[in-house]
């Protein structure tokens, strides 16, 4: 494909899904939504097939339903804007350009589950957005009051800790503690912030929820595939011919994706950030981007043949080793040992076969670690060492 054809194809895809960055009248939407029954709202979200856009992909409607049914004094809605996954940067733009839509999504959720307080947990690296978001929250709090919705929203700022994006660590952090993940269950819908029922959703999930109530669930369902309905905002970086933030339908295969965004020499794509899987060129055509294939919070990092996958893996492992909260042994010791292990193979201190032992360790971490950080390290580790084994020692 030449660049004109690429651009045309891309425009075609983008026309199919134009939800997140489309301007709508959010006040009108809110007025309309709060006149609907909570049950109707929740049913619409369930019917739309919307699954969480933060990575784990839990059905959003069921989460809302769980929180609605939970017994609790006061209920909370939290917008997860911690966006720390390497290679992900779409929430920054959504929050910046579509602040009203995200807050409206939170308010609709609050109406549906009967929550009275909302927080946006913004990562410290995005503090430049803080004053704008706080001002918007104030404006909306007045609107809520005018419209008779008992709901108040505010912003909390993080302080540079990737693990705080994990929902229970995020609650700990909001409560003024070290951001150490909790045991689950209880799940946040039963005991979240302040141990009260809490809906926590990603920025993009909340914006989509608003659009589903605006347009109805049918049009959302019509985009994507059976298992991955709707659109997704992708963050595209690395050796890409076009980089940046693009909203596309879910369910494309990786070959189609690379045809549009690659530089004709793409040897691998890391899907889902450093905790996602690395897909080699030979598997592009058979790999679906979506919950039935490789799920992603949106991070798509492309590598061409000049890149050393050893360096990529080493960079990820340094990241995990630094960001592990250290609370549980499999992750704390495992991250260190995997990093030391590949360095030892690289330097020749250990034979290449030592990689098998390291892969076993990553597997053990995936079942024995307390939270998703330690559990998901097996994704990059085992995919990179499987498909690019020889690059680890040369």
């Amino acid at each position, binding site marked *: 494909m030449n660049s004109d054809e690429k651009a045309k194809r891309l425009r075609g895809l983008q026309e199919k899904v134009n939800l997140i960055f489309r301007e709508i009248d959010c006040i009108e939407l809110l007025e309309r939504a709060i006149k609907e029954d909570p049950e109707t709202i929740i049913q619409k979200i369930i019917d739309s097939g919307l699954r969480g856009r933060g990575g784990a992909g839990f059905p959003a409607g069921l989460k809302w339903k769980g929180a609605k049914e939970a017994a609790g004094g006061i209920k909370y809605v939290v917008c997860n804007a911690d966006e720390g996954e*390497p*290679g992900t*940067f779409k929430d920054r733009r959504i929050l910046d350009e579509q602040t009203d839509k995200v807050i409206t999504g939170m308010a609709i959720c609050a109406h549906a589950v009967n929550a009275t307080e909302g927080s946006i947990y913004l990562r410290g*690296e995005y*503090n430049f957005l803080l004053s704008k978001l706080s001002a918007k929250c104030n404006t909306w709090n007045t609107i809520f009051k005018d419209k008779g919705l008992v709901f108040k929203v505010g912003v909390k700022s993080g302080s*540079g*800790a990737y693990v705080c994006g994990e929902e229970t660590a995020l609650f700990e952090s909001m409560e003024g*503690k*070290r951001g150490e993940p909790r045991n689950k269950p209880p799940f946040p819908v039963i005991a979240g912030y302040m141990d009260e029922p809490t809906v926590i959703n990603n920025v993009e999930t909340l914006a989509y929820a608003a659009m589903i109530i605006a347009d109805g669930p049918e049009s959302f369902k019509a985009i994507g595939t059976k298992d991955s309905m709707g659109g997704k905002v992708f963050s595209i970086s690395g050796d890409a011919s076009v980089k940046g933030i693009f909203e596309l339908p879910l369910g494309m295969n990786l070959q189609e994706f690379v045809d549009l965004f690659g530089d004709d020499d793409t040897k691998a794509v890391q899907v889902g950030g450093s905790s996602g899987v690395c897909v080699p060129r030979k598997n592009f055509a058979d790999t679906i981007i979506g919950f039935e294939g490789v799920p992603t919070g949106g991070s798509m990092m492309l590598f061409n043949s000049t890149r050393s996958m050893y360096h990529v893996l080493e960079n990820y492992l340094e990241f995990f080793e*630094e960001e592990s909260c250290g609370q549980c042994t499999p992750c704390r010791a495992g991250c260190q040992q995997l990093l030391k292990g590949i360095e030892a193979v690289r330097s020749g201190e250990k034979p290449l076969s030592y990689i098998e032992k390291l892969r076993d360790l990553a597997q053990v971490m995936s079942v024995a670690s307390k939270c998703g950080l330690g559990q998901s390290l097996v994704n990059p580790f085992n995919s990179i060492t499987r498909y690019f084994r020889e690059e680890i020692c040369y």
Partner: protein
Amino acid sequence: MMLNEIVSTAVKKFGVGREQLLPVLQYVVSQEKWLSEDALLGVARAFDMSAAEVYGVASFYSFLDTKPRGDYVIRVCRTVSCDMAGKEAIMEALEKTLHISVGETTADRKFTLLETNCMGWCAEGPAMLVNDYVYTGLTPEKVVDILQGYMAGA
């Protein structure tokens, strides 16, 4: 402002409920750039908590520094995308211009140079933060210009 004034201003602004501990520590850092032992003790007293617990919280977060920092804290993104976009050359330019290595603070306490994990600008790397302000699409020349701006600034 004196340290105890800073702490009392923060406490007045946010209160001493446990969930306000991070906002209070963040406020102190915004004024002082780091949390000294005296600052931690002051906050612990205001919150009626042990200093060890306050230190435990502060030391968990990379932006709540418990070591002295300069007026301008520079954090260069070290994640893969920025690395591929030429982060090493940026680091060299910073180190050469400031005459310090990563992790160090200049003798005049004006600049601290650090690395940080993904800051969310992967398509526009290399990127760095100077306090809360973001710079993207960096080149070694641009970095020197930016530093000179800060050096002339105050």
